[in-house]
């Protein structure tokens, strides 16, 4: 009996691939890590949260879908219901939409949600060529767009005595300890009984998500660590200088969108540098910017702005003459000096402000 032998085809080495690695796995992990925060938001805000989340994801996915269909049409391809570039299949658009939704306050009007989602995904991602090409984090771009354009329409629905968010109050008087009378650390840590955006409040759930991502190695743990570490360092320096005590740095970490931004937005691999060193400097720069905007800026919150600003500098972090796969001794020394100088600048600045 004549056996049919398999055809021999030619390929180039290597012939193996890491079995478990895939973009889908990475993006799905981020979505899974966001689930506790999402459930907490729904538990706390009910229908309002569900509406915001559904609208955000829906608007982003629809924008992307329509965009790719139009692009394919222009390229002269035949219309297919299932578009090949559409990133719903690898969870990327779901992740963006969910992150965006969770940064919004619960009272955001529906058209603002949709507008921000559209702006974020279109100008943040599609215009640059889709997944992997974007300069800005789509979620952060959409959030900042509506924050700047429709800021007055979004007030925080407050269920405690205070009339503003913790950071909002602190913005009026930077070093007023009495603020903390309204917000106990337990409140800030669990997210119960404090105002804020629907997903940013519960520090413990965000950290839980972060730990999950770290265990699954689906994000770069150096960025949130240096980011939060830098804020703690600068806040501690200010606290020591002003004699404010331990509550001050802890308060800075737990309030506002810092944890959420550090864990879910700054770590977006597409909009962060690719080397180990670059990622550490990136996290440091984010921390400095966030703290400076909070202390010296007009806005109470600086996480979104600092992420967008640093997104622009990612290409410089990756400039071929400046990058190095390993962190050299020279880099360590320069980085140490930069950290010291930053601390000094902060203290000098605070002495003028306060």
């Amino acid at each position, binding site marked *: 009996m004549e056996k049919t*032998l*398999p055809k*021999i085809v030619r390929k180039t080495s290597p012939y193996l691939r*890491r079995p478990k690695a895939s973009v889908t*796995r990475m993006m799905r992990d981020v979505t899974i890590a966001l689930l506790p925060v999402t459930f907490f938001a729904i538990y706390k805000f009910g229908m309002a949260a569900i509406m915001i989340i559904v609208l955000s994801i829906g608007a982003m996915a629809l924008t992307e879908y329509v965009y790719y269909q139009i692009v394919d049409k222009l390229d002269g391809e035949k219309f297919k219901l299932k578009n090949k570039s559409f990133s719903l299949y690898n969870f990327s658009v779901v992740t963006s939409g969910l992150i965006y939704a969770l940064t919004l306050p619960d009272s955001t009007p529906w058209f603002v949600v949709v507008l921000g989602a559209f702006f974020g995904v279109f100008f943040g991602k599609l215009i640059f060529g889709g*997944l992997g090409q974007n300069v800005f984090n789509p979620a952060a771009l959409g959030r900042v767009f509506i924050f700047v354009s429709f800021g007055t329409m979004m007030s925080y629905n407050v269920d405690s005595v205070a009339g503003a968010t913790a950071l909002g109050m602190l913005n009026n008087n930077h070093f007023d300890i009495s603020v903390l009378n309204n917000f106990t650390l337990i409140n800030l840590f669990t997210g119960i009984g404090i105002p804020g955006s629907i997903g940013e409040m519960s520090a413990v759930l965000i950290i839980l998500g972060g730990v999950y991502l770290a265990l699954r190695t689906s994000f770069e743990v150096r960025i949130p660590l240096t980011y939060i570490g830098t804020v703690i360092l600068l806040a501690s320096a200010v606290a020591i200088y002003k004699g404010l005590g331990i509550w001050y740095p802890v308060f800075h970490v737990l309030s506002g969108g810092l944890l959420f931004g550090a864990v879910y937005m700054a770590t977006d*691999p597409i909009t962060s540098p690719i080397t180990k060193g670059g990622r550490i400097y990136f996290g440091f720069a984010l921390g400095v910017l966030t703290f400076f905007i909070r202390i010296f800026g007009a806005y109470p919150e600086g996480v979104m702005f600092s992420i967008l600003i640093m997104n622009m500098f990612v290409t410089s972090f990756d400039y071929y003459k400046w990058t190095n*796969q390993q962190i050299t001794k020279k880099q360590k020394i320069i980085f140490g000096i930069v950290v010291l100088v930053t601390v000094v600048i902060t203290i000098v600045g605070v002495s003028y402000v306060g």
Partner: protein
Amino acid sequence: MIKKSRQVRDYKALDKTLPTLRYVNPDEVFIHLQNNRCKTYDVYVKEGDHVLLGEVIGMRHGGFFEQPVHATISGTVGKISKKFHRTGRKVDAIQITNDFLDTFHESVVDRTDEEIKKLNQDEMVEIVKDKGLVGLGGSGFPTYIKLGTKEKIDTVVINAVECEPYLSSDYRMILEHPGEILEGLRYIMQALNAKKGLIAIKSKKTPLYEVLTQLLKTRYKDLNVEVAKLGNHYPQGWEIEVFKWALGIEIPHGELPMKYGVIGFNVTTTYGIYQAVKHNLPVYERHFTVNGDAIKFPQNIRVRVGTSVKKLIELSDGYDETQKEVIVVMGGPMMGTSVVSDDVVVSKTTTSVLIFKNVTYKEEPCVRCGSCVYSCPAHLEPVQIMNAVKRNDKEVMKGLEAFKCIECGLCAYVCTSKIHVTDYVRKAKRLVG
């Protein structure tokens, strides 16, 4: 997955435990007259001549060296025809039909231990040169040039790491011939006047460690040889990684390890040196792995140099017939060459043939996760080089030192998006060389 990952699944379970099959009497062998280093050749025999095992039948001419070609069986010389070499090129090969007598040539005489003790470096180099010994791990670099180094060598390192997945021929080699390898190491140390020897193995290969230490404790008490357990990652077998892990010596790109007082030999080469010095034999047999996920019975075979790979695949029950397409790889799965036909013959430097199912990986856009940057053993940034290749920006390719790439394939292996990064880096390497 964003992480430094040099763990490569090794798929060695089955064929590692099986004893090596002896297949030393092929009907005919084809001996390469050209290889990747030697383009021209002379033949000293003509069709119909009767040759003996170990007889010099020709001479390969390389750029700066010459390599004698030896008959690996006794028999009748046939025609010169084109056969595939492991590098994927078609080269001239001379056919010898076996007379199944295995008559050794008169040059094949054993040296006594006293004779060997008296040999100095130059004589040793002469023997190794006469027997045409080259780096048998796959490099094919002439061993006599290495052995004839004028630098002062402190440590001789035997590289038995075999970090490529699927391959286990070196593993079986040590298990079955530990004494010969230690003896070969003794000759090298004698030639180079080195004080210390070191055998580098992966730390999970406990049987090898036990075999070697047992022998060192008993029969080779006088040898100052240490068995070093190195890491289990890939590419631990890269010479520079071996030196770094075993001795803590970091050798910069482009410099020879001899300058730093160390020299590395592959374990099969060491066995070859033993054969050459002790028995005055050329490399006429070698351990050969047949493995892969589309072969029915993976195993190690001891073969004559010049045996047809097709025959060896048949001996391993052939291809998996459920597959429509297979990939035939000469060498390891990470760095080996894919050939267009199984009409390949085993040369001295061929370690294995692997048959894989033709899996097409779906490439997704790069998400800049940085896994390739974290994992690269040569400290490059493969993704940046890839982007530079896409833009055809030669200055950046040079700036990113693409020429340092060792083509280990790890960047493509770890890629989250399953992009063939290695191909891009290889292209950059060719462009800026």
